[in-house]
C-alpha cells in the first residue's frame, strides 16, 4: 500500500467517535510527521468496533473488577490503540505528542503500569494469550461471570509456540469467557496451511473468519460466542498490513 493510500485510509477513519477529537487527528498527533508502517491500519477497524460497540470499559471503570478486559498482545500495534484510548478519554490527547520520549508514558510498546485502561504490557510476542487465559480463569474463580476477556494477536505472532499452549488448554477446559482476535494480514513467514482458525477449532474453540474492514461483520463475529467454549475471530485484512 502506498503512502497516499495509507493517508486515504487514515482519512476514512476520520469520523469523530464520541464528540471528542476525531480519531484521524489523534492518529496524526501520534504520527508526528513520522513515516508509519501500515500496521496502524490493520488493527484500527477491529479496535474501533471493540471500543465503540463491544467492550464494557470506560475511563471510569478501568479498575472495576466487573469490567471487560482487552489485552493487546501484538504490542507493536500501538498507534491506533493510543489514538483510540485518547479518543475514548482514557488518556489525555497531549500524551500522544511525545510517544517514546524520555518523559512519555507511551512507548513503542504499551506498559500497563503507565497507561490507564491498558491491561497488559506487551511487545515480546506470544505473551498476551497466556495472560488472557489466566485472567479468564481468575475471573471465573471469583464468580465474575459477566466480564469477557478479549486478546488481540497477529497471524505472524501465532508463530510463537506459547500461543499454542494457550490455545490447546483454553479449548480443553472450555474457557468460555475468552475471545481471541487474530488480525490476519498473511504476514506469518511460513503461513498457516489449512487456515489459522483450524488451529483453534481443532482444540474446541468456536471461530468466525470475517473481512477485517467490515465493521458490521466484525461486530457480528465478536458477539458470536455461544457461551460454552472459547471463541476466535479472524479479521482478515490486506496482505502486508502488519
Amino acid at each position, binding site marked *: 500500500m502506498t503512502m497516499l493510500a495509507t493517508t486515504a485510509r487514515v482519512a476514512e477513519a476520520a469520523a469523530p467517535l464520541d464528540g471528542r477529537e476525531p480519531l484521524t487527528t489523534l492518529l496524526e498527533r501520534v504520527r508526528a510527521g513520522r513515516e508509519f508502517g501500515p500496521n496502524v491500519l490493520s488493527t484500527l477497524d477491529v479496535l474501533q468496533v471493540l471500543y465503540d460497540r463491544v467492550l464494557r470499559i470506560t475511563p471510569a471503570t478501568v479498575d472495576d473488577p466487573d469490567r471487560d478486559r482487552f489485552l493487546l498482545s501484538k504490542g507493536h500495534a500501538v498507534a491506533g490503540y493510543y489514538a483510540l484510548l485518547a479518543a475514548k478519554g482514557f488518556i489525555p490527547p497531549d500524551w500522544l505528542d511525545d510517544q517514546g520520549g524520555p518523559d512519555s508514558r507511551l512507548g513503542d510498546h504499551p506498559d500497563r503500569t503507565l497507561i490507564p485502561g491498558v491491561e497488559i504490557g506487551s511487545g515480546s510476542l506470544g505473551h498476551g494469550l497466556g*495472560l488472557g*487465559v489466566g485472567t479468564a480463569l*481468575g475471573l471465573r*474463580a471469583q464468580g465474575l461471570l459477566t466480564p469477557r476477556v478479549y486478546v488481540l494477536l497477529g497471524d505472524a505472532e501465532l508463530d510463537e509456540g506459547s500461543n499454542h499452549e494457550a490455545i490447546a*488448554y483454553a479449548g480443553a477446559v472450555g474457557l468460555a469467557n475468552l475471545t481471541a482476535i487474530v488480525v490476519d494480514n498473511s504476514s506469518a513467514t511460513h503461513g498457516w496451511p489449512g487456515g489459522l482458525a483450524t488451529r483453534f477449532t481443532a482444540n474446541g474453540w468456536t471461530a468466525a473468519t470475517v473481512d477485517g474492514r467490515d465493521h458490521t461483520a466484525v461486530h457480528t463475529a465478536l458477539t458470536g460466542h455461544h457461551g460454552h467454549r472459547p471463541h476466535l475471530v479472524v479479521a482478515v485484512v490486506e496482505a502486508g498490513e502488519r
Partner: protein
Amino acid sequence: MRDRFVDTTTALLAEDPRTALVLADISASAFAPAAERHPDRVLNVGIREQLMVGVAGGLALTGLRPIVHTYAPFLVERAYEQIKLDLDHQDASAVLVSVGASYDRAEAGRTHLGPADVALFDTLSGWTVHAPGHPDEVPALLRAMVAAEGSAYLRLSTLHNAEPHGGDGALVVVRDAGPGAALLVAVGPVLDAALDATSGLPVSVAYTHRPRPFDTAGLRALADREVILVEPYLAGTSTRVVAAALADRPHRLLALGVRREEWRRYGSATDHARWHGLDANGLRRSITDFLAPALV
C-alpha cells in the same frame, strides 16, 4: 519438603479463597484432593510451563495469589521470559515453588538439574528467595510468602540438615569461633556439611534459608576480614551482594557452590555434592586452602 509443601498449600487453598495453584503435571496427583475441592483454583495446564507462568500472571491481575510449581529448570529456565514479563513487567506477583534443586534427581541427568535458578532470579528485581534447609522450615516460610504481597521463590530439595532453623531469614549464628574468625555463611541444606567441614577451624558459621534479600546488615555485623559463602546452587550466586555489602572494608571472599561444568554423570545427589566439592571433605579442602595465608 515436597510433602510439607503439598500439605501447607492444600491448607492455604482451603483457608483463603484468594489462593490459587498452577501446575504443569508435576505433583498433580499429590494435589488431586485439593483439585477436587477447589476446581477453579487448582489449575493443571498440562506440560506447558510457559502457559503455567502466563496463567499465574493473569490470575494475579484479577487479584488472586497464585502458587506455581514444577521442577526447577522447567519453572525458572524454560519460563524465564514469562517470569520477567508475565509477572514482573505486569507488576503482577506470584509464589514460585520448585523441586529438584541442583541435583536431587541426579540420575535423571542434565535436563533435570537446576543449579542456575537462584542466579536467574538475581537478574530480576524485588524477588524474595528461600532455600530451606529442613522440611520443618517449609510450612512457615510458605505461609509467610503467600501472605506477603511480592513475588517469591521457594526452592525445595530432598537434601536437608539434621535440624531445622527457624527465623525469617536473618543470619543466625550456629557456631561462634570468637573475634577475628572467618565467617562462613551456609544457605539452606549445606549447613551440616559446612559445620562438619569447619570443625576445629577458626571459622564462625551462620545460617540462612533466605539468600534474597540477603541479610547484609547481619553480614556486616558478623564478618571480619574473611567471608566464606557456601550455597547449594551455582557457585558465586551471592558474591555480588556480599561484595557490595562489604565494599567499604578490606575483605577476602571464598564463594563455594555448584560448579558450571557439565559432568555428564548420573549417580546420586550425594555423588554430585562430592564432585562439586560440597561434601564436608571437599568444603574443608577449599576452606583450609583459602585460610592458609591467615593461618601461617
